């Protein structure tokens, strides 16, 4: 996959309310994000390929060279807090516990301004907490979080290149 060639960041939006999904999708698309919207935490995990990872880990003899679903490239996850079955907080935890997904920035949205809830989410690793209804100004705050993770990816690639150059030098010496 090319580097700066892909102009669009991919955001995964999670909300059980159809109206709110429509809203967040429009808001994100207005900011030129590519959006996938799902209506539950479990669907989000499935999309991210996490379900497969858990299944692989259950087989002790299986060596999993790639636990990350290479077909899915998500740069940010924005999720509602209050959802049936799996809350946004539960989803956040599962993402942060996953080796392959923990570096994806997660943002939580909620219609309720509960300080303890907000702190809990931020402590668990959420980048931001937005009060609903989410505004354009909130969405504008997302970019720095996305660029941060892109820079990290590029640096890691640089390290790999440097190592192989040294290896080659040693071989040729």
């Amino acid at each position, binding site marked *: 996959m090319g580097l700066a060639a892909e102009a669009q960041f991919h955001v995964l939006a999670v909300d059980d*309310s159809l109206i709110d999904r*429509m*809203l967040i999708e429009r808001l994100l698309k207005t900011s030129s994000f590519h959006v996938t919207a799902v209506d539950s935490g479990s669907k989000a995990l499935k999309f991210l390929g996490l379900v497969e990872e858990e299944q692989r880990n259950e087989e002790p003899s299986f060596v999993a060279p790639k636990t990350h679903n290479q077909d899915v490239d998500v740069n940010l996850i924005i999720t509602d807090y209050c959802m049936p079955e799996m809350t946004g907080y539960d989803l956040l935890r599962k993402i942060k516990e996953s080796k392959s997904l923990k570096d994806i920035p997660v943002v939580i949205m909620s*219609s309720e301004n509960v300080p303890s809830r907000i702190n809990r989410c931020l402590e668990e690793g959420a980048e931001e907490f937005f009060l609903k209804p989410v505004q354009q100004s909130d969405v504008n705050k997302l970019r720095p979080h996305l660029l941060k993770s892109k820079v990290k990816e590029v640096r890691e690639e640089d390290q790999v290149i440097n190592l192989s150059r040294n290896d080659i030098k040693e071989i040729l010496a």
Partner: protein
Amino acid sequence: MEVGQMQRQWLDYTRSLFIEGFLDGQFLQLEQLQDDNNPDFVVEVVSLFFQDSHKLLNDLTIALDQKSVDFKKIDAHVHQLKGSSSSIGAQRVKNCCIAFRNFCEEQNTDACLKCLHQVKQECCLVKNKLETLFRLEQQIMAAGGSIPMMELSF
């Protein structure tokens, strides 16, 4: 009626909806999200809200009619209605829901019934208002005009 007059009528009507508290700033946000590529966004979201609220109000009516009232269930429904009304800027409906949830917490059936009645009324009112507004918009478009945007200052 010529386009200019219709546009002024639209502006006056929209202003009144804000002044009377039927709509709040969130409705303006919705309008800002509408563009040439998504020309029906506001109507779509609003229609969805009325479909949604219709079902929720029915569920609430049934739930409050039970011998043993499940306040947790009722609170969940009202929470959903509060969320969606807030998302489209239906301020009076949202405010009714806030009061409604307080009475749920107190497990006060009578007060909840009164709230339900009120929230039904407010949904009905804002539905009529918005339908009138959309009709005005259609008339303006049909006459070749455009909807005046964001000249609302109050």
